[in-house]
């Protein structure tokens, strides 16, 4: 059996390299893969990818490398590692257990109390636990990087996040990816009794406080802490701010704010984004969207449609995917969302780009990241079949050229409770009431 041989090879590979080789990984040669390069080269059939020193050094055919570990792909697809979206990976283990949740500077009633102070300086990244079981589960599904974002519904300034590579290392964050998150719209209204107008009022006030050249006078009402002003100023100086908004009108307001202050905005949500698609395209503003959203969860999402992704892509808006509804532990569901977007008109290549090269570009990961080309970080996934198909699985994940363990808490449980008989029981006759 071909498949068995491959599995055996992979296991051998894991034993010899994945578990034994620490910092400097050995060369890896992946042969005869269907390589989705996410570059102008497109998809290469029966291509080889050579990995050295944690990076892709060559993509071509008939490659050879003495001493490299050879993986025979047999035509299976090889993609860059996938982006898990805007998540709490590593800062949320179990959503409903507050002792395992580290996404907010304002726990409890802080967001609505009278002494509420916005904290744009809050940084979610120091709490990131690279060893969390939830990361292992998602990595085994092909997720190799994700935005680790604060979540402080109702506080407007949620704080700072950054993109982490999920390789378990102690320096997983990519400095250039740092992003300030602003939670606007109806949930903020609930949290602090704000109106949307008040959100923009506070945003302008914080901006004025933080901008150099507008020193505060004694007696001025201050919104931010001194550190908050300092940190917020950095984002105003051409930094990246992610605004959680759905309505077309709010997207327009955000774009105007961003234009006024020279901020690089990212729209998160954008249920009505396709209504302002040409504006977004002109301003080159990306949208992180939930591809499975077909219903108005709120009045802000009236007009939500499965065609959102396809319409934005056609208009030239950079799109990325995230999975809002099921939370961090199921971040991997973005892959299914991408496939569903294809069923609703998004070109297949664009859907894969939304999970790989586009997030790399939007969050400043470097021109080779999220792609398979010489110089790319060797963050790769070998798939059993079509990577966007729900019946496919990640068979091997590499990050920085290192084979990652494909075991997780879930595979441990799976194996512990494996049914003793290996074939399913006979189908019972159809039961009548």
């Amino acid at each position, binding site marked *: 059996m071909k498949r068995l041989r491959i599995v055996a090879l992979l296991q051998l590979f894991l034993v010899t390299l994945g578990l034994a080789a620490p910092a400097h990984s050995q060369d890896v040669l992946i042969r005869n893969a269907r390589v989705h390069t996410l570059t102008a080269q497109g998809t290469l059939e029966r291509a080889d990818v050579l990995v050295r020193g944690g990076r892709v050094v060559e993509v071509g055919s008939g490659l050879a490398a003495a001493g490299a570990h050879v993986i025979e792909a047999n035509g299976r697809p090889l993609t860059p590692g996938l982006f898990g979206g805007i998540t709490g990976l590593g800062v949320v283990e179990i*959503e409903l257990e507050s002792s395992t949740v580290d996404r907010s500077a304002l726990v409890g009633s802080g967001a609505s109390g009278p002494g509420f102070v916005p904290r744009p300086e809050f940084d979610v990244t120091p709490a990131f636990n690279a060893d969390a079981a939830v990361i292992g589960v998602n990595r085994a599904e092909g997720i190799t990087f994700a935005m680790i974002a604060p979540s402080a519904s109702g506080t407007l300034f949620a704080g700072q996040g950054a993109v982490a590579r999920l390789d378990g290392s102690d320096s997983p964050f990519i400095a250039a990816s740092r992003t300030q998150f602003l939670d606007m719209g109806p949930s903020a209204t609930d949290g602090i009794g704000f109106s949307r107008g008040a959100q923009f009022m506070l945003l302008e006030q914080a901006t004025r406080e933080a901008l150099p050249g507008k020193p505060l006078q004694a007696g001025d009402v201050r919104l931010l802490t001194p550190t908050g002003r300092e940190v917020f100023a950095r984002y105003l100086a051409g930094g990246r701010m992610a605004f959680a908004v759905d309505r077309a009108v709010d997207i327009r307001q955000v774009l105007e704010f961003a234009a006024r202050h020279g901020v690089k905005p990212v729209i998160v949500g954008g249920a009505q984004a396709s209504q302002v698609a040409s504006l977004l395209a002109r301003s080159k503003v990306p949208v992180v969207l939930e591809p*499975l959203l077909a219903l108005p969860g*709120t009045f802000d999402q009236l007009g939500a449609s499965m065609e959102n992704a396809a319409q934005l892509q056609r208009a030239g808006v950079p799109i990325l995917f995230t999975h809002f509804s099921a939370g961090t532990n*199921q971040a991997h569901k973005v892959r299914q969302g991408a*496939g569903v977007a294809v069923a609703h008109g998004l070109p297949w290549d664009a859907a894969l780009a939304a999970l790989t090269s586009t997030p790399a570009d939007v969050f400043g990961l470097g021109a080779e990241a999220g792609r398979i080309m010489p110089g790319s970080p060797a963050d790769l996934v070998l798939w059993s079949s079509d990577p966007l198909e729900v019946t496919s*699985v990640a068979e091997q994940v590499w990050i920085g050229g290192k084979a990652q363990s494909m075991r997780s808490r879930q595979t441990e449980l*799976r194996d512990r409770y494996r049914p003793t008989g290996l074939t*399913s029981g006979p189908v019972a006759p159809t039961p009548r009431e």
Partner: protein
Amino acid sequence: MSWKQLGGATLAFFVLAAQASPEPYPSTYHAQSSAPVLIRNATVLDGTGRRLDGADVLIRDGKIVEVGTALPQGDATTIDAKGRWVTPGLIDVHSHLGVYASPGINATDDGNEATDPVTAGVWAEHSVWPQDPGFATALAGGVTTMQILPGSANLIGGRGVTLRNVPATTYQAMKFPGAPQGLKMACGENPKRVYGERKQAPSTRMGNVAGYRQAFADAEDYQHQWQKHEAEVAAYEKKKAKDRDPAEQPVPPKRDLRLETLVAAMQGEVQVQVHCYRADEMAVMLDLAQEFHFKIAAFHHGVEAYKIADRLAQEGVCGALWADWWGFKLEAYDGIWENLAYVDAPKDGCAIVHSDSDEGIQRLNQEAAKAMSRGQRADLDIPPERAIRWITSNAAKALGIAGRVGTLEPGKMADVVVWNRDPFSVYALPDLVYIDGALAFDRNHPPATPRSDFLLGQPGVAR
């Protein structure tokens, strides 16, 4: 017939009526009239475990007439389904459409009567808003029947209702005629969290179990009161007319809607549906069911059902499960992709894919596909014709409507989905959906206006 006899008959009727009315809030659903349809040359998964390639499906008078090859066309309209797949209409045993409608705002928050841990007297159908836009998106995913349940804040949350997925102004016009109601119960974290935070019982799992037991103990007492009353009525009626004193005519106990529901559960008149995640808690609920002589139709969510798959199969209890939800609370922490496949594996195993989600209900086929694929990779033999049962016939069984829907056997209600391809794929979409033989959805000829009044005339709403 003397007036006294008439009185006796009337009384007997009331006794019956009080304990088991024929159908209060009756269904007004009527199948749309439809012309005969012959779907030709499809790959048919008939819901019984059979796969037929190049097969035809004949529908007439709202019923499945036959599935076979080269069926005579007669007067039927022909649908060329070459390259396409045909399945029974999908059934979701766990939906909150209408009771947690879109948009999810204060005004539509009608799913949990979270004011008391036992609200067995409430009926989810009385919360259903037929204008929920989610019904239409579920239909576009091939769902033709679904059970709407109360939420899981309460130990005993109330009665569920099974609906046909047809546009209607009233829920009664969607109500599946003759389908038994469900009874929603909930284990574990939700009830103890909701009430514990209010410093009220239950605040622990032992408090949960004491809560169910007391409720059923009260129901037993209530049942005895009615049995006693029935005996008194019988004795009264045995008397000769001249010996009857109208003043001694037995007076029925006051109806208690809460206990009436629990008695109905003990008498097997409603299908008991239990929200329960952990294997050990499911075992406790099975013991509870034994203590109070009721039958559990299905455990819902059952993230750990795989740990007791053999016992569930032996006891004839279905597992209504997700493919990959896990970890959002501790009782969901042990989720595995193979849960459905493991629950399906034993002889008589009854695995069901449920949604509990207005998003998930749009793609039950994909949930089944994920679970099927992971099961296959765990070396279980699960072809599509087997897995389709998880979203059709097994679901019908848990709802007590397996004799009428869930398969394409002759005589069944003609709920049929024509898929553009193998439905076990992320790219699959229903092309056509028939409900009782009437075309309810046509992907290539979408309605010019939204089905929901709520969406009508809203800016940005194209459908």
